[in-house]
């Protein structure tokens, strides 16, 4: 089965691999049947709120990945919405021109904040998918700048013409799945934390097979482990195929 991974960070400064390590990272993905992946950038390389130059550097790395491995990699443009409307528009325009196909939001701000308006407006204008980091804030208690599942859902509701991926099913948990239920322009990726049992099945039961996307969060997570969350789920083969590939192809408008 060929697989599309919607949540990866092929370049990750923490592990010291650099650009030289990308080849082995992609080989590792291929060995697990992943023939295409979404590169989201090394989003925490400069802390949670990088400046414009740091954002450009991260996105330049993603552009390099896309240009070097065009068959294998779709790149998303990483943004810090708190840098303001002009900075957001400038970076989005630059990255779209360079071939990036979506937007990645991390923990510079909460997804419900007003600074998300230009981000979502630019996504709508360029028909870009938005992947929003999300995690349950019940225990973490950083909701001032860290997005809770309900905040990601609110973002998607406010901008119904933008396709939003809420990252980290495992971090969002049952509450996150329930919040996402009535929001048709929101998908959930299966990444996040250790592979907690029965969550993928629950997400499919509540959201339907069409709104769950396979994502690994590699290199933080193991490709083989992330895939086993789907293949050991007890879901039928057609549903597994949709999660592992077809849903993402439709969402990213790939053949």
């Amino acid at each position, binding site marked *: 089965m060929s697989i599309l991974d919607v949540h990866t960070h092929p370049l990750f400064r923490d*592990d010291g691999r650099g650009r030289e390590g990308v080849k082995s*990272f992609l080989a*590792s993905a291929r*060995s*697990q049947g992943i023939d295409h992946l979404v590169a989201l950038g090394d989003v925490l390389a400069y802390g949670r709120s990088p400046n414009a130059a740091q954002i450009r550097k991260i996105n330049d790395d993603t552009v390099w990945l896309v240009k070097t491995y065009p068959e294998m990699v779709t790149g998303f443009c990483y943004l810090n919405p708190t840098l303001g409307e002009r900075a957001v528009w400038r970076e989005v325009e630059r990255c779209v021109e360079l071939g990036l196909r979506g937007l990645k939001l991390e923990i510079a701000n909460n997804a419900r904040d007003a600074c998300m308006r230009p981000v979502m407006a630019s996504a709508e204008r360029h028909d870009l998918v938005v992947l929003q980091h999300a*995690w*349950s804030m*019940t*225990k*973490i208690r950083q909701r001032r700048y860290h997005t809770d599942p309900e905040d990601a859902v609110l973002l998607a509701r406010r901008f119904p013409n933008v396709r939003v991926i809420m990252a980290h099913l*495992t*971090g969002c*948990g*049952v509450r996150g799945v329930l919040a996402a239920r009535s929001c048709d322009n929101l998908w959930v990726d299966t990444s996040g*934390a*250790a*592979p*907690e*049992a*029965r969550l993928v099945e*629950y997400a499919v039961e509540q959201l339907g097979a069409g709104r769950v996307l396979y994502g*690994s969060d*590699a*290199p*933080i*997570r*193991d*490709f*083989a*482990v992330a*895939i*086993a*969350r789907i*293949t*050991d*789920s007890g879901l039928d083969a057609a549903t597994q195929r949709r999660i592992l590939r077809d849903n993402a192809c439709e969402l990213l408008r790939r053949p």
Partner: protein
Amino acid sequence: MSAFDANTWIGRWPFAFLTEHSPRTLMAHLRERGIDRAVVSPLDAVFAPEPGAANRALLRSTRLFPELVPVPVINPVLANWRDELEVCTRDQRVRLVRVLPSYHGISLGSRPMAELVLELRQRGVRLAIQVRLIDERHEHHALRIKPVSMRDLSRLLAAHPEGPLLVSGLLRSEVITLAPQHAHLLADLSFAEWHDTVQHLLAKVRLEQLVFASHTPFLVTAAANAKIVSSGLKGSRLASLSHRNLERFLQP
């Protein structure tokens, strides 16, 4: 691949939609995924006032399943822990006991803990320390449960270098920090993860210090196999990781 699982549980966990396994269903579930043996502890011991009843049920219910090695839970904070250990270890299958410091209020530097380690050594029974049962960020909102402190665990390991000690639930970064410092630490792989988990760990940790573990039913069982199978290990190195390290640990 013959696999011997260092971390499985039977019984009910009230805070997630997990499968409530009996020894029969657990063994069938593991076999379907290529795991032919496992050590198993009772979830009912986690929140019970004392673990005795859960341990008795574990020992009784696993009798017909020689592939399952029963691992009772001991709480050294309770006044009856020596009696409980005595009762449990009368069963010749008991080669290992598990402690749950975060759930049972056990300080690793406390006198009861030191006494338990000493008593186990005298009896020739091994000890497993469960650092976490689930990701602490996902605990029930009404609970405040933190994983075992790495500093306390490191001190315990340093204070008792005489025999191997199994630690379950360590994250990748914790395995990499602790294992090179403590040669007698055996780390279960259930929570350790990186994009090439096993090779990544083996760059820093001796193979003899790692054991295969699924942490069923909390985590996806086949994910544990996938980590090992995708590691590229072959022959005796694969056998060490999948079952021999745990077999050696459990030998009297």
